[in-house]
């Protein structure tokens, strides 16, 4: 019955992440891809929101999208798990539904 939430927009450019965090049920996982991965860094204006989200959601981010954008995987908020494309596919198959916050 669980829903995988996917966010692909920068939290500083769009409100996709905010809408996701407002409407995702507790315990449903959140996957950050493309420009969505800018939410993973420490010390940003979005860091507190992410920190809070981690208390009720598992949060994943696509490693290739971090590398493409020059984001150091060592400088991300504790508790966020990095996945590769195989992990991405696995997450989608483990959940009944997907909600993409375009």
């Amino acid at each position, binding site marked *: 019955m669980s829903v995988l939430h996917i966010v692909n*927009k920068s939290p500083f450019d769009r409100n996709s992440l905010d809408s996701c965090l407002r409407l995702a049920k507790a315990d449903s996982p959140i996957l950050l891809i*493309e420009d969505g991965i800018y939410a993973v860094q420490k010390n940003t204006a979005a860091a507190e929101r992410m920190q809070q989200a981690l208390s009720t959601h598992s949060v994943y981010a696509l490693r290739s999208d971090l590398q493409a954008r*020059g984001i150091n995987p060592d400088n991300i908020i504790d508790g966020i798990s990095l996945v590769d494309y195989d992990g991405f596919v696995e997450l989608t198959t483990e959940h009944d539904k997907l909600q993409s916050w375009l």
Partner: protein
Amino acid sequence: MASKKFLYVNRKAPHGSIYAQESLEVVLIGAAFEQDVTLAFVDDGVYQLMQNQDTGGIGAKNFAPTFRALGDYDVSQIYVERESLEMRGLSKEDLMPLTYEDEDDDWAEKDSIHVVSSDELADIIEQQDVILNF
């Protein structure tokens, strides 16, 4: 042809849309026509200048190294808004070093990137003849 002051305002992250790459193409064209070119990086546009971008894993062109060619096109006025950096937990050290050789100073290698406040950037915008937004 008299040269005009051209400002290119970059506000988009590099790989999520085509804006950043297209902007850089247009900047290089403008510079080839010997216009007075200034670049501004604001909002998510500051991410375009991040060091160590490696797009091998997403199958997209990595155009970041092209920024290094700007100095050879006499594009040496690159302004990054401090407020945009701070909001993203970034500082100048997170950005790729961009330099030019100053012909008026015995070709000394100098920094092209200037981190400026919103107020300073507002003044820079005022001084332009043409402003292009990406």
